[in-house]
């Protein structure tokens, strides 16, 4: 399957990150680095988050963004990076929001 990413979407993410940073806000970037099964967004998908909790982009089509934002806000304070894994069995899938039992690994980093 062709997982080519929408260029326009990616443009928005990078632009938003630079824009927020330029406006003096703290910013973090999250990137899907691995997927198993039927994950909703392909590897390379990105999400930009600012210190007010605003976000542009997507790493899971809305499923785990809430958890990613929490981690991102912590990284903005403490600096550094973190790799998150949302491994989901079919039973748990609904709870974390990955409706189809997919599994994703996400790299989150603060923008310095």
């Amino acid at each position, binding site marked *: 399957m*062709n*997982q080519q990413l929408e260029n326009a979407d990616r443009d928005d993410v*990078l632009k938003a*990150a630079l824009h927020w*940073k330029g406006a003096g806000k703290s910013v973090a970037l999250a990137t899907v*680095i691995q997927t198993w099964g039927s994950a909703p967004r392909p*590897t*390379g998908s990105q999400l930009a988050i600012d210190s007010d909790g605003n976000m542009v982009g997507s790493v899971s089509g809305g499923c785990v963004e809430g958890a990613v934002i929490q981690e991102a806000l912590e990284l903005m304070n403490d600096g550094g990076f973190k790799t998150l894994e949302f491994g989901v069995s079919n039973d748990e899938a609904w709870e974390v929001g990955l409706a189809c039992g997919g599994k994703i690994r996400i*790299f989150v*980093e603060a923008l310095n």
Partner: protein
Amino acid sequence: MDQSLLQELQNAREEKRQVVLASNLTNGSSKLLYPFENKEEDILNEEGRLALRNDRPREVKQNGETWFLNIFNPPLRMFIVGAVHIAQKLAPMAAAAAYEVTVIDPRRSFGSDFRFPDITLDDRWPDEALADLKPDRRTALVTLTHDAKLDDPALEAALKSDVFYIGALGSTRTNAKRHQRLERAGFTPEQMSRINGPVGLDIGAQSPAEIAISIMAEITASLRGKQSNDL
């Protein structure tokens, strides 16, 4: 990641360069790679080339550290010279495969919007149009007019560029004549070997739609780095 690196990435994308954002998952550092602008054979550049060619990010291990190579490719483009029957089938197929398609034909009755709904038409002469559109490494060019006055200037422009695919419609005989003309224009046999002619994979195509499929298949194979003798 530093803000300055992100700005450099954004600049590279605006310049339509093929760029890789390499993130070290072990220590959190990152850097940009331009794998097609160098001949480095280290693992990051080699894997970066593969990732860009396949339009797929990848994870790589180097000296016990793990890197994630995220890819930023400029859009694929296809320039079709000749608003002919085959172009009417090829243009929508290419658009479906995520190419930005431009059909170039200065003959107004051919290149009407009616014949090419939703496709960008350019009614300049091919040499003028291509000088402006600047074909690059993510561009495929196909000539379909059978008319040397239109096809040859397009092929000459393509041969002077980095396009990943050049195809020219025409029989083996037409193709041989074309080679002679291009040779007189100063191109070497090695340069001319970039031209796929007769155009398209040999799948026994007959109708315009089938010929378009064979061209699309050949372009896909070139894009993804498949050797033609595998096919």
